[in-house]
């Protein structure tokens, strides 16, 4: 059942992105930035966690979860160390996404040649 909800919720978030493309005529850069900030704000109000429980990868795969996990890491560390933790814990949860992008980007640049 989670599979179906992952499909529907993930697709729905992509439709929001498409509407920002088409109706508001924003560039992909603007759209993705807006979605990340939206994810961070949703987690600030504690609304993103229930969505992940409900939809699984439908909520963790779209870029909104990037904002969510940034806030999450910061809050988890802030509980232990107070205000300083907001800085030190920021990338705690997100590190896999960023490091994967950097590492595979480098490997890709080593293996593949640019086309055209």
């Amino acid at each position, binding site marked *: 059942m989670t599979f179906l909800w992952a499909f529907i919720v993930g697709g729905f978030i992509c439709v929001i992105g498409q509407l920002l493309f088409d109706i508001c005529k924003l560039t992909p850069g603007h759209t993705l930035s807006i979605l990340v900030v939206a994810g961070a704000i949703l987690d600030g109000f504690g609304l993103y966690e229930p969505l992940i429980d409900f939809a699984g*990868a439908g909520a963790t795969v779209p870029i909104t979860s990037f904002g969510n996990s940034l806030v999450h890491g910061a809050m988890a560390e802030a509980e232990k160390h107070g205000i300083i933790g907001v800085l030190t814990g920021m990338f705690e949860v997100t590190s896999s996404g960023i490091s994967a992008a950097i590492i595979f980007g480098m490997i890709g640049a080593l293996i593949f040649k640019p086309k055209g």
Partner: protein
Amino acid sequence: MADKKKKNLPPKAQSYQAFQKQRESKRPILMNCLKAFFVGGFICFIGQCITTLYIHFFDFTEQTAGNPTVATLIFITMLLTGFGFYDRIGQFAGAGSAVPVTGFGNAVISAAIEHRTEGFVLGVGGNMFKLAGSVILFGVFSAFVIALIKTILIQWGGL
């Protein structure tokens, strides 16, 4: 802001703007949304399959399985981008391929491959986050502000 700029234009340019707006081809919004829905949903469905694999075979919990899933999806994106398939998916699906984390991976990896000819330090290193940098910047800054406000409210506001 766009309207303010238009007021300062000479009347000829204004009438041209109106004419251009009239002639602009209409975007098939409904069709685009459907494509984005199905492709985006399909990517999330694959993500859910990978998550399930990690939970069953590698002892991750449902809370932590998101991280290796994201890494795996970015790895798949590297292969698709390198062989030139991701561009075609992107042209077809629009936001359906840009909004999932694979779009973020594609932005980083394609920039890295494209600027390889300029050398590894200045080309790949300097341009890798050209497109994805704004996502990281605004994500980190908004997360910082939100976490700061929340921490202050919890610690001194007794929330």
